[in-house]
């Protein structure tokens, strides 16, 4: 019955790794699809206030960000500054920024454009109010106050 005798290998058999690239590629594609590249370097302090009633910011491609806070570089003083894209800006620059952001989007999506205000918690409301007024004038009415999410019970314990 030697016909059915199987050859017995000595030691452990080598594991077939030919499907390893496929598995790695699968992971690679997953990360490639989910990756959102960081576009701007934030130059202002960003210590967000906490809130419990938050909503997720959906469709990130339809969100433009305005950063407000004290500059990280202490040489620039401690007054709250507005950062649009990669530069410090004044309140008067906000309408132009909004117009450019709108221009960059598809015609049909322009109405859905949300402006996310990323404001440092210690900032005074004055500058925020000014920005909000400019946004109103520029007709960018959907805004989102960026906050950290905490449970309502934990909110008072600070």
């Amino acid at each position: 019955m030697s016909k059915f005798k199987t050859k017995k290998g000595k030691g452990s058999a080598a594991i077939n790794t030919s499907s390893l690239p496929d598995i790695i590629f699968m992971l690679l594609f997953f990360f490639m699809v989910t990756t959102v590249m960081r576009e701007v370097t934030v130059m202002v302090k960003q210590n967000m206030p906490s809130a419990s009633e938050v909503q997720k910011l959906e469709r990130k491609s339809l969100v433009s960000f305005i950063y407000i806070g004290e500059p990280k570089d202490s040489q620039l003083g401690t007054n709250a500054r507005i950062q649009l894209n990669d530069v410090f800006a004044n309140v008067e620059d906000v309408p132009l920024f909004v117009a450019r952001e709108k221009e960059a989007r598809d015609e049909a999506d322009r109405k859905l454009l949300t402006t996310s205000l990323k404001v440092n918690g210690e900032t005074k409301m004055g500058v925020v109010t000014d920005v909000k007024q400019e946004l109103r004038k520029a007709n960018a009415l959907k805004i989102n106050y960026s906050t950290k999410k905490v449970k309502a019970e934990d909110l008072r314990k600070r």
Partner: protein
Amino acid sequence: MAKRSAPEINAGSMADIAFLLLIFFLVTTTMDIDTGITRRLPPPIDNPDENIDVKDRNVLKILVNSHDMLLVDGKPGNIATLKDKAKDFMAIHPNDPEYPEIKEEEVEELGGKIVKLSKGVISLKNDRGTSYDMYIQVQNELARAFNEMKDDASLTHYGVKYTQLVDEEKMKVINKLVPVRVSEAEPEDIGGGN
């Protein structure tokens, strides 16, 4: 004659190349989801002198001064009690002149049921010197009040909480029954030092 096979390409290093790319994307990926309080700004007014008259009893005025102190309806307020105060104000109190007026509305989606709705509006006003943190806390408390009222309305009409509603039509009905009426006054300095 033996068939000549095409020379085989060594694919052993393919995994390495894929690994390299994978690690690059792993490092650059930011998985954080942005969260925040979504609000709609009022459209710009053409004529600033033209004011919409709202009866005094229909408005709950909330003022925040530059020392982050609250004034709720003319009395010093506390952030811890603000949610309940807002809820109480927006609740239905029949024939009480202290509370907002009530209008009755027929809701088709609920089979023509007549529902009592409050005409109350919450007006929020802050000083230029108010800290953003305090402002967010106030906004959050007001959002909490409205979310709880939505939950209550959803429980009475559909038996489940608002957050557990799946049907978008039902969500719309609840949003109609409990509209988020937080109005932000035109900014002005209300004082209290800078």
